[in-house]
């Protein structure tokens, strides 16, 4: 790295508030969460100016200098200067969790001997005070022989002070190691407890969390709450998003009308209405749902519920050969498999980690949502069951549950065949409950919305344009002979796209896909949402002529067994190039992504075939 600015690494125990502080200091949008292991990759940012600036590095949290997981390994290697892609830090901001001094000081006992110039920052002081405890930072300074700064990252208290210190090398000193026991963990922990008792009056375990956990982790009430949370989650996706979706839909309709007025009929008008609005617009409609999904997951995470959920489901996961820790990456995969697969780094056992990565694509990510919602809205009647739950919401939940069960079964099979071996033990820390920060939740949603819009603006736009061109050329003959609607569908059939569709359609014939759907499925191997835009383009012929939405057109054009078959296919198929790329990176080989792609395809095809055959026989 040609950068001459000194690097300061942020080091601390998991969930001690490093990332919150890092974000508050740099204004960066590093994802923060309330469970250990949110930061699984290092993040860099800068403070100060060119002349007197520092490069800040947020590293994954560690419990000790003896790594047990991949993310800990990374931090420790970086601190020792053994991580090839990271510079050895010139100094360290050691973050101490004020509400859990013993653990932080134990890590400090091991860390001090690395001999890196260090400044201490104590976080969570607000929680200590709220619980009736106290912490004497002057006494801590004296006990450790280092400068100590107290901060409340999310409230901004103490930040200017820390920022000034970061730019002042004099505030960083090499920790005096005298008095700190060497190699022995028991002795180091006794030392940590002694110092903690000297400098602070413990407020004890967080009383509010205790009180909440009495219900949330209750043997009967706990699972009931868990089920309720999950149910609410899926209901909200449908009910809350509908008005917003209708709004976007009508906006797109007006835009199309505007183009039809403003642009002379011909190729350009056709390109704008069918290629752009029909393709990209039909995907944009699903933005509200994706935002609600992220809102929910981020809230649960910030609140501290995810770790509790891991506790609640550990027994169930054990049945499938996994452990509660796998639940966190898997739930994350419901938003998107990519961060989910990355957060599998918190799993200590390599075989468990691989298993989790391989089944992560089966967890229903938000990209499937547009496909599900479109087909469910078209084919499942909008009515209430038991006067309360929407039938559409129930079907959606069923698809999610189906995929999750299949994933767990696959995990079971993998763990007893390819990835056989003892699971490492399950050990998880339950963080105290915290009030979700609106800023953090907002940032997570904005980030995801940005990614979604970017994908709509790039990959989906490119696919839309390509599909539009393929559908308009070569021009069909005898267009003049028939009326305009017939001419358009004739054009589509005789176009290059029509030929491709008909060419591959035999492959999908047994599962009930016609050639139009086949093209949609083919296109969605780039990204799942493409399916919706393809359908939007293919059927925009009819849509622009009448006042119908894509939903009603699909109702007429696709049979119910075929629609269910498409749903079954999307539940299992791994249609996402980015996921395959990140799997390749996280497993350092092509073997696993190819395996994942192959097994999910077989599953998808098999499930679609069974669905189609059974439904055709029944209906």
């Amino acid at each position, binding site marked *: 790295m040609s950068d001459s600015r000194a690097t300061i690494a942020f080091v601390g125990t998991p969930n001690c508030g490093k990332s919150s502080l890092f974000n508050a200091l740099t204004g960066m949008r590093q994802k923060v969460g309330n469970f250990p292991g949110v930061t699984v990759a290092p993040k860099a940012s800068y403070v100060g100016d060119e002349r007197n600036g520092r490069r800040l590095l947020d590293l994954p949290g560690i419990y000790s200098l003896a790594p047990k997981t991949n993310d800990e390994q990374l931090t420790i290697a970086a601190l020792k200067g053994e991580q090839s892609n990271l510079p050895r830090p010139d100094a360290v901001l050691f973050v101490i969790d004020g509400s*859990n001094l*013993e*653990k932080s000081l134990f890590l400090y006992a091991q860390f001090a001997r690395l001999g890196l110039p260090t400044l201490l920052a104590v976080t969570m002081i607000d929680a200590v005070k709220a619980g009736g405890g106290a912490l004497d930072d002057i006494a801590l300074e004296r006990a450790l022989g280092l400068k100590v700064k107290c901060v409340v990252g999310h409230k901004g208290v103490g930040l200017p002070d820390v920022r000034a210190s970061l730019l002042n090398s004099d505030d960083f000193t090499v920790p005096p190691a005298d008095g700190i026991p060497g190699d022995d*963990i028991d002795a180091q922990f006794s030392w940590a407890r002694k110092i903690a008792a000297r400098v602070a009056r413990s407020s004890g375990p967080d009383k509010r969390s205790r009180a909440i956990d009495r219900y949330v982790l209750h043997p009967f009430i706990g699972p009931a709450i868990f089920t309720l949370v999950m149910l609410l989650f899926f209901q909200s996706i449908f009910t809350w998003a509908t008005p917003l979706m209708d709004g976007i839909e009508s906006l797109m309709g007006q835009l199309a009308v505007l183009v039809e007025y403003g642009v002379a009929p011909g190729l350009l008008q056709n390109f704008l209405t069918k290629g752009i609005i029909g393709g990209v617009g039909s995907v944009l409609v699903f933005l509200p749902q994706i935002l609600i999904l992220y809102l929910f997951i981020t809230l649960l995470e910030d609140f501290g519920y995810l*770790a509790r959920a891991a506790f609640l489901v550990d027994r169930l996961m054990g049945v499938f050969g996994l452990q509660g820790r796998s639940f966190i990456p898997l739930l994350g995969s419901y938003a998107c498999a990519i961060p989910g697969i990355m957060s599998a780094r918190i799993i200590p056992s390599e075989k468990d980690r691989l298993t989790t990565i391989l089944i992560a694509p089966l967890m229903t990510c938000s990209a499937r949502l547009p496909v599900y919602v479109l087909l469910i809205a078209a084919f499942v009647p909008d009515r209430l069951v038991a006067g309360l739950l929407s039938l559409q919401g129930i079907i959606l939940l069923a698809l999610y549950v189906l995929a999750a069960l299949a994933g767990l079964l696959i995990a079971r099979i993998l763990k007893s065949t390819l990835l056989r071996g003892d699971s490492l*033990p399950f050990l998880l820390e339950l963080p105290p409950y915290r009030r979700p920060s609106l800023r953090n939740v907002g940032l997570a949603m904005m980030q995801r919305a940005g990614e979604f819009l970017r994908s709509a603006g790039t990959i989906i736009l490119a696919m839309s344009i390509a599909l539009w061109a393929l559908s308009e050329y070569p021009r069909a003959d005898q267009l003049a002979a028939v009326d305009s609607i017939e001419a358009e569908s004739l054009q589509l059939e005789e176009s290059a796209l029509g030929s491709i569709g008909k060419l591959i359609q035999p492959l999908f014939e047994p599962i009930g896909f016609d050639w139009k759907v086949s093209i949609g499925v083919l296109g969605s191997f780039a990204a799942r949402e493409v399916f919706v835009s393809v359908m939007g383009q293919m059927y925009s012929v009819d849509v622009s002529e009448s006042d119908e939405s894509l939903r009603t057109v699909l109702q007429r054009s696709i049979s119910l067994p075929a629609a269910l078959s498409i749903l079954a296919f999307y539940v299992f198929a791994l249609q996402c190039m980015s996921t395959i790329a990140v799997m390749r990176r996280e497993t350092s080989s092509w073997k696993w992504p190819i395996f994942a792609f192959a097994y999910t395809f077989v599953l998808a095809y098999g499930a679609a075939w069974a669905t189609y055959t059974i439904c055709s026989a029944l209906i």
Partner: protein
Amino acid sequence: MTSLPTGQRFRVCGYSRHNSFTERLREMGLTRGAQFTVVRKAPFNGPVEIQIDNSTLVVRGADTALMLIEPA
């Protein structure tokens, strides 16, 4: 661990064998002589929640078989 009554305090006397997991348990504070409380147990022999210092930990009962404990 799963047979321990909840709400009671115990002391860690040591470990019958050492491996990387017992090392992690000690790094989380379950060192010789340390006292912890069993807070609750998940049903069907599920994980056990314990309180040590200011940390709340969740472990599977079977995984802590190497830990030797006595009532505090």
